[in-house]
């Protein structure tokens, strides 16, 4: 819907589409997928973000339905791709779990979010 046109002093309006780079790291996708149901307990939660993040200031944790933390506490940024954040999971009993992430993108902006997934036997 949005027409993109030359700003500033240019009198000519061009209609082109450009993809703007996002300075905030938002959730692109996750495994287990947001709101999905897995058969069996997944070994890890991995989230892909839209921007690279700083390991020193990024965290991710998984809690169960009662709010108790269940992940292994080894949240880390993938050394080969700083857009991926993972944390390992022990064998989880069936139920609903909540993933909460808080990251700082490489250009210093903080974002956070959460989602749930279900584990079925």
């Amino acid at each position: 819907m949005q027409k993109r046109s030359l700003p500033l002093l240019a009198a000519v309006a061009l209609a082109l589409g450009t993809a703007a780079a996002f300075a905030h790291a938002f959730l692109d996708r996750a495994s287990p997928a947001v709101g999905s149901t897995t058969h069996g307990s997944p070994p890890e939660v991995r989230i892909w973000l839209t921007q690279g993040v700083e390991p020193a200031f990024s965290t991710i944790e998984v809690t169960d339905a009662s709010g108790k933390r269940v992940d292994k506490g080894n949240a880390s940024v993938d050394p080969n791709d700083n857009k991926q954040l993972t944390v390992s999971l022990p064998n989880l009993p069936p139920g609903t779990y909540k993933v909460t992430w808080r990251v700082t993108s490489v250009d210093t902006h903080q974002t956070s979010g959460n989602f749930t997934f279900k584990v079925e036997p």
Partner: protein
Amino acid sequence: MDTLYFLSAAARASHYASVVLPFGSFTCAFVVARPAFRRVSNEHAERPKLRRFLLRLALGGTVAGAATTVLNLWMTAAGMSGQPLPDALRPEILGAVLTQTKFGHIWLVRIFVTALLAAVLGFLLLRRREKESLAGECFAALLAAALLASLAYIGHSNDGTGAEGAFRVGADMVHLLAAGAWLGALPGFVFMLARAGDPKVRYGLRLAHEAAVQFSPLGIVSVSLLLLTGTVNSWYLVGSVIALVGTTYGWILLLKLGILAIMLTVAAINRQRLTPRLDSSSSSARDARATLQALRRNSTIETGLGLILLCVVGALVAATPAAHEEPLWPFPYQLDTVGLVVTPELEAKFILAVLLALGGIGGIIWGLLKRFWWTPLGGLVMLGAALALPAPYLLTDAYPTSFYHSPVAYDAESIRRGEQAYDANCSACHGAYGYGDGRLVDSLPIKPSDLTGAHLLHHGAGTLFWWISYGIEGTPMPGFDDRLDVDARWDTINFLRAQTDAEQSNGMDAAVEPFRPIVAPDFFFQPLNQNQETLKSLRGRTNVLLVLYSLPDSMARLEALESAKPSLAVLDTRIIAIAMTTDAATEGQPGSLASPSILADANPDVVAAYTLFRRVPTGEGVLPVPRHMEFLIDRAGYLRARWLPSEEKGWSDVAILRREIETLNKEPPREPAPEGHVH
């Protein structure tokens, strides 16, 4: 805009103002002072005085740069760690920022350059003889350039990746250096003008004249580069005129441009009127002295404006780039040419407007050339009339949210929630199927609109959001912001989109028709005993045959499709079969299929969303939900064909289905359906 923002802006502004001085001083020395002295007198007594002033200015800027570095690191640490300001100063947090983050590493390099530059400048100041320190001055100038240009790595232009990212950083570096060369050279220039006015200085006027003559091209080249690279930066960071006027970043940028315009006016006066009069060969000595005073005053004003400009830049750099925000449209109207109907009356007005515009522009140019004051004024009035004439035809109402994007994805889940909200809130007036024939219609002074027209979505999701939230003035349409939360309203808009698409594509049949942008709503599906997938993940890779089935009616068909699976896989087509209902009859059956891999778990969202697409054009109204429906979705994610067994023979012969898929595969690759929402 909280406290941290203002403090960050102040920290950035003060750092920029400091770091501009060293590079600007060297620019003044090499581009303005050196040539000026060469033309007047190489052994001039003022030369060492100017040199000392410039070196001291550069050193002052460098030291201030070091101090403001600490401020900036503190602000960055607070932002990155989320800690309150006093806590962010703790060594472990500052240390983590400096040593473990990309930003921190860049600052470390800059701190090193700052220290080295301070050392070299100190050394140069201690040496008495200018001639021997040329190499040192060049080295210091390079360090100053590096210090200034490296600011590009800590700004928003560093967001990109690959070649495009490098281009953006490069453009920003040129922008910084051009700004430094111009703004940073101004204090030195003012110093030269001030000293030239001292009667004890030999050839004072000539020196001032030569300096002004040298400064002029420096200003022109710098400003040209600034405008060019500024456009590049804004292309990425603002992206559209809408974002320019609809976001805080955009308004700050407009303020920056306004200040720049004032500075350019002053610079133009300096160049066109004052500098020529400094030449004492063409004007009297007294006139030249008065001009020198005026030039010095103007240049001081320019320097002051430059400082204000850098403060605005600090505010700009600390703000979220406009392209990353939802724009709040500040005007009551927007430009809209799609709904334009060209009538003879409109044509006549348009021709009149063009004539007025030409006359207006001609009048302005003539008046400026001939220096009549009233002709440009009259020209402006004509131009205004020319723009006002077609305006009512080209403008439509706009609202603050008109250019918003939906934060909710266009998927089956959202459409189903939207349908529920619609049934509860909208169907009473707009009808169960959106035709504007709800039960309350007779009691309304203005009839509710038919929501299934092709032009519904032309209004824009943001305008629809405003209407749903706050109603339409002058009509019985109420606002629902008290009854539906924000996400529910966006769900409703997604449902309206699906409903309109369904009505507009009601002629879809089993033959693949020429492309129309009917997006197949995204959905989760879980093939039996496998991991969940989404329709979107298949985009770009396979076509999809979506089968909504009921048992026992569809049993034979499912078995036929199961056997046809390999032949369809060869044509890059995946079959996804989802049950229409989840009653007991369905549960038991799937096991009887040979290998139930086309079957996926029951999914009420998919059923709700895709059964919307059961409309047909034969005046029967909306059919009851059929027991079996099949949809062909192409690689790009668009709905291309549909088979309702009750309406035609269609794909009952799988060979016909294969032929239609082959038609699809012959099409040139298409861009996938655009992402309708933003994060």
